[in-house]
């Protein structure tokens, strides 16, 4: 069903890209990519249209598709959960900046253990996904959960079978906490999983874990929270046990070194800070530095500026974390420096 949906979406995307410019020149802002950010964009687009009359046409076709479309210039901006490397950006004259943040949570299905009761740490989680810890009553899990009675049941590992930004951030975390994972598996939108079942989409992972006794998986927090999935707590880089929440994601974001990184290429997993959730994730917007249609890009940047300042409440309602103010300042400074048309910045925030 997700396949049919994505076919319909891409068909719609193709149809729109032909039809829209012909009908109206003062067109909606067009974008495509990450499905992680789609709910926020949908909400923002709605409100923004009411306030300004300019709508947002965002196609949730996945990060990979978004990157392809912005490279082909069929949309004004792309959105990806995996940042592009400096070389990839330079090659196509692109720039990127984070738009919103969220968290990824381990979800599980073990009889008798309630949501939030289970505690895991990076080492144990990577060993489970590596296939070296295979039962729920393994000493490593017992040591982290002395008060729980864990069953002697095989652990059924569930991962995404489609390429996904969620997988990228999750495997990035596993690579940071486990040298063995980094060496053998690495991090990407799809990797060579050593064990487990693949399921398509966030809903596929959630359903497979729900269906399978002894299952463990990972999903975006926003999805898990809205569907009441039983998530686990994690021990973070500072050695503290934290629960997934907007505050713990925000802490991870605040502790990340945005200013010291080129092209905002910071992956906010395993960040320092006592309150930081270890598997936080961001979604980047990717846009052309020297756009063919400067007016369209100006419209888009104006919308992003609005979203950074006025869209924070809506993001919070949907279980996403807004970009901190100090980072927004950095981002908007980068716009006036990088995104030019005819020797002048396309859009200067605050004017």
């Amino acid at each position, binding site marked *: *069903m997700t*396949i049919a949906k*994505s076919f319909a979406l*891409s068909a719609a995307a193709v149809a729109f890209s032909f039809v829209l410019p012909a009908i109206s020149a003062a067109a909606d802002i067009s974008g495509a990519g990450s499905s992680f950010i789609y709910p926020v964009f949908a909400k923002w687009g709605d409100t923004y249209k009411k306030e300004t009359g300019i709508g947002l046409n965002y196609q949730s*076709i*996945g*990060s*990979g*598709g978004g*990157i*392809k479309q912005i490279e082909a210039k069929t949309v004004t901006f792309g959105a990806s959960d995996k940042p592009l490397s400096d070389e990839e950006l330079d090659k196509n004259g692109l720039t990127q900046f984070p738009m919103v943040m969220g968290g990824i949570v381990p979800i599980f299905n073990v009889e008798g253990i309630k949501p939030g009761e289970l505690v895991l740490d990076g080492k144990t989680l990577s060993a489970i996904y590596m296939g070296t810890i*295979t039962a729920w009553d393994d000493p490593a899990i017992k040591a982290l959960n002395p008060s729980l009675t864990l069953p002697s049941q*095989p652990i*059924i590992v569930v991962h995404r*079978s*489609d*390429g*996904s930004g969620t997988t990228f951030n999750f*495997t990035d975390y596993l690579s940071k906490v486990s040298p063995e994972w980094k060496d053998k*598996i*690495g*991090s*990407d*939108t*799809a*990797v*060579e*999983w050593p064990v*487990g*079942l*693949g*399921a*398509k989409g966030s809903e596929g992972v959630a*359903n*497979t874990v729900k*269906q*399978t*006794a*002894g299952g463990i998986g990972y999903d975006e927090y926003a999805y898990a929270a809205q569907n009441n999935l039983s998530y686990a707590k994690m021990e973070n880089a500072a050695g503290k046990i934290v629960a997934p929440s907007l505050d713990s994601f925000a802490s991870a974001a605040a502790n990340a070194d945005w200013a010291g990184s080129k092209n905002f290429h910071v992956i906010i997993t395993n960040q320092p800070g006592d309150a930081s959730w270890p598997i936080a994730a961001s979604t980047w917007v990717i846009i052309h530095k020297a756009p063919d249609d400067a007016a369209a890009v100006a419209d888009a940047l104006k919308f992003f500026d609005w979203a950074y300042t006025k869209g924070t409440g809506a993001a919070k309602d949907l279980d996403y974390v807004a970009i901190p103010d100090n980072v927004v300042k950095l981002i908007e400074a980068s716009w006036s420096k990088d995104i030019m048309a005819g020797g002048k910045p396309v859009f200067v925030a605050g004017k």
Partner: protein
Amino acid sequence: MTTTDVRPSDVEAAERPNRAKAQDRLFLGVTRASAALVVLVLLGILVSLVIDALPAFGNFGLAFLWNERWSPAKDIFGAAAPIYGTLVTSVIAMVIGVPVSFGIAIFLTELCPPMLRRPIGIAIELLAGIPSIIYGLWGFFVLAPFMQTTVQPALIATLGHVPGLSLLFSGAPYGIGLLTAGIVLAIMVLPFITSITRDVFNTVPVMLRESAYGLGMTTWEVTRHIVIPYTRRALVGGVMLGLGRALGETMAVTFVIGNSHRIAASLLSPATTISASIANEFSEATSGLYTSSLVALGLILFVITFTVLALAKWMLGRVETH
């Protein structure tokens, strides 16, 4: 048509205006073009598959066919796991589906009271009309939990200890995997094989059948020694058509196969098939080599299915001429 005896129809034809002849010629042209289109589309698909698959074969060589590693992170791709999964699930489907289909067909043609023949026949045909996504949902939500809690633990506890078979039935009960996918496929090919088998059983001359019964043969003996040998080649053809469907089935399998690019001896382990891999990974394939490898998988499936269907047609065709 001869010139010596002139029939009334010929006279009539000669008297027709030229317009009618032109019309006929146009009709011929249009139908011929339609027929040519089919061949062109087939060749077009083949050519575009080959062109898009070239980067993958250029990069990995023929080793692409037997290399098991599938690592999008490192841009290393091999088709062995999907090919293995495709073949094994299809074989399981055949092992379960063929005997059951034959049983249904024999019951319908030899033993069934005439009153029940139509309802059962229609039920079988309706089974063929259920969209594959429904089989997938059913497999995932109903069959898989049953497999995980009941069937697979039982298999592991019994057959898992039999020397030789233990390899096939080892590991954790995942619920989904090769065996579950094979069972779903078996149900899906059932109507195809059954309806073909029933039709070919009906081609056995009544005289042959009646004579056999007249000689005192039992129903079992008539089926075993008369009906099956008489229709053997057509039966194989029917089975191959079912196999063709099992090989290419996508949605239902994607739900219950487990989508994991590994080759494991156990039938309970998660695996992947060619079509499931393509359906899962195409939309997010970021590198050119990744996309090309998926197209190459498609080409391999095209060749496998084409071979199976060609064999089926050839066998069914030989029966009709004989």
